[in-house]
């Protein structure tokens, strides 16, 4: 089924209407005389299953992942599809729930019979779905930034070619933070796995650069107010490193402001906290002058590449990273490019493997493993990337941005090498 693009910012893949349209189109194409027009895409379409967090805690991200998906699929099909086949994206909601996420993988594999599944984001859903994808022999390509793929604890069917993992992100930024903001770091992070990754990898990177983590402040997963944790921030703190994923971020910042006033340490945060949040929101004034990691700069920079411009145009995002139809509707810009890039990587690998149907799944994945580098391009608007076929993980540039006039301005771009670390295993030694 083709994902229908309506006006940017408000579209949504509606499976039923798309299905009806499809059936109609198929009927037309089957009619004599129309055969020639259908030649542009030959044979059966390539079906991609895309689990989306439409509901549950990941819904903010899911909405934008779906919009990017729609735009990317449209672009691929305009360019002749994959190896001459039209691409159909089949979307299922997984409720950001590990069990439902797994069920959806099964549905893709056994009912929709898709060629590959891609697009999963939240780590717990990925971890639950990955073993089933392997058992069902379903290529499973995630857009999650978690370290789970690169840790080589999943299986050979799991890839992350579209976005750098947390370990690499954190490691590549630590030197800049040490050099420019301070060496004594206090970390505030959510007390669950994603936060623990930050805690472990960033602490290690800080120590490696001669810095010191003076305090670790884990926040319980159900916390909605943060003030009472602030006294644990030692007075000697030079940099406050914060990762506060979830809807509590505005509270966090506001309370930080109430607590410290102007006598605050340097703040360095993960943009995950303020994804889909308008920087012009009340309370966020306090972030003025602080720094953030960004996977992809939300605000169009002075030296914006033509590719980024093109990407924004097609997805329907303005120069502030918000929906063109509603400037209050802010995107998850730092992450959502991964859906776009991943689709083009699937296309590249499938065409390299001369993929025309599921019998070539293994060839497709081997082709994917053989990819080495993705140059900055329309297909890869975030920038150049290096892919490690052994760990199935991609490595790219990271951005450090400063909040200036309620916008994020890039002040540093890490090199790809900054984020490299030794392989933790080798998927290619596993069997399919």
């Amino acid at each position, binding site marked *: 089924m083709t994902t229908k693009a309506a006006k940017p910012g408000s579209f949504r893949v509606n499976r039923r209407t798309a299905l009806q349209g499809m059936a109609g189109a198929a009927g037309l194409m089957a009619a004599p005389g129309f055969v020639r027009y259908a030649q542009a895409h030959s044979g059966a379409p390539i079906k991609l299953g895309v689990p989306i967090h439409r509901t549950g805690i990941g819904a903010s991200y899911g909405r934008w992942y779906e919009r990017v998906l729609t735009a990317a699929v449209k672009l691929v099909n305009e360019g002749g599809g994959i190896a001459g086949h039209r691409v159909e994206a089949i979307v299922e909601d997984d409720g950001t729930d590990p069990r439902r996420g797994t069920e959806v993988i099964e549905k893709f594999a056994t009912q929709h019979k898709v060629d590959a599944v891609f697009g999963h984001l939240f780590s717990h859903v990925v971890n639950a779905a990955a073993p089933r994808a392997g058992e069902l022999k379903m290529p499973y390509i995630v857009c999650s930034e978690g370290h789970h793929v690169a840790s080589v604890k999943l299986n050979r069917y799991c890839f992350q070619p579209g976005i750098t993992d947390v370990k690499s992100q954190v490691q590549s930024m630590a030197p800049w933070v040490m050099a420019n903001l301070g060496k004594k770091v206090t970390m505030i992070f959510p007390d669950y796995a994603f936060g623990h990754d930050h805690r472990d990898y960033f602490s290690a990177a800080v120590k490696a650069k001669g810095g010191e983590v003076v305090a670790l402040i884990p926040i*319980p997963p159900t916390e909605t107010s943060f003030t009472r944790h602030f006294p644990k921030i030692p007075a000697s703190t030079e940099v406050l490193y914060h990762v506060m994923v979830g809807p509590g971020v505005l*509270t966090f910042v506001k309370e930080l402001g109430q607590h410290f006033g102007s006598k605050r340490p340097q703040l360095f945060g993960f943009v995950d906290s303020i994804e889909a949040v308008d920087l012009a929101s*009340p309370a966020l004034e306090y972030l003025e002058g602080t720094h953030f990691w960004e996977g992809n700069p939300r605000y169009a920079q002075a030296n914006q590449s033509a590719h980024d411009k093109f990407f924004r145009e097609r997805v329907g995002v303005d120069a502030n990273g918000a929906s063109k139809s509603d400037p209050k509707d802010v995107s998850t810009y730092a992450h959502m490019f991964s859906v776009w890039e991943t689709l083009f990587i699937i296309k590249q690998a499938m065409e390299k493997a001369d993929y025309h149907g599921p019998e070539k799944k293994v060839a497709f994945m081997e082709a994917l493993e053989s990819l080495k580098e993705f140059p900055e391009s329309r297909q890869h608007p975030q920038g150049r990337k290096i892919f490690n076929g052994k760990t199935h993980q991609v490595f790219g540039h990271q951005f450090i941005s400063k909040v200036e006039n309620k916008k994020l301005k890039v002040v540093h771009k890490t090199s790809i090498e900054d984020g490299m670390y030794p392989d933790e295993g080798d998927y290619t030694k596993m069997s399919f």
Partner: protein
Amino acid sequence: MDFGPYLLLATMEGAVGAAVLALTALGLSLVFGVMRVVNVAHGEFFMLGAVIAWWVAHLVGAHPALGFLAALVVAPIMVGLVAAVAERLVLRRLGYDPEATIVATIGLLYVIQQAALSTFGPDARPVEPPVDFRILLPWFGYSGYKLLVIAAAAALMLCVWWVLARTRVGLMMRATRFDRETARAFAIPVDRVYGGVFALGAMLAAVGAVLIVPIQQAHYLMGHDPLLLSFIVVIIGGLGSLRGTVLAALVIGMSDGVISVFFSPTLAKILATLLVAIVLVIRPTGLFGARAA
């Protein structure tokens, strides 16, 4: 930071949490006490209050205080209406059977949550506080609005107490709570009292949400925590006891904050949770409840 100021901060935070919690829990307690209905959708009424508050504040647009005041009036009324309709169409037809109402209110929870997601969207949205000033203490700064929340919550609780203790409507509620059949034999319109109590309970949750939303933002999944905490408060406080509810809210609100001074926050939450369980095991009628449920 020194221990003293630290404890002071934890106490102030606990007081703010307790104030809003007391309001929300009072709503649950009323419904529970008068109707013997466990309203699992109570947290969703809270969420709905926050979401409508955001919507109203945005529509008004003018000075934050104006938007906030409008929200303070509109949100509870709208939530009350939703609750009254739900009571009329569902709970009344179930004859307030305890188990059936639990399932029905779980259904209601899903319906409200999904409706909020479909219309309001998945993002957390802030409402500006009506007043924005920072109280500077020698050791740390503190939000002035938060102190205002405590005052507002206390005033609202006094209002509720006055209605219950001093008005005819309150008398009807208390009589119905005690003996539905005899109340009926004295011409108390029990059906209308039930509808009113259910709406009032939801409105209290909504008011709590409007107060908290400048601190916490509206989000479609925010109803979960208030529900859990309200449950605890209602049980610890003793069923339908206003005084007990307030005291229990204070204890719960404070204990979490103060325990987290001594232990890691997650461990503090675990201990606080276990404490509640143990208290209930030792005193099944709640700390302040005089009578068995």
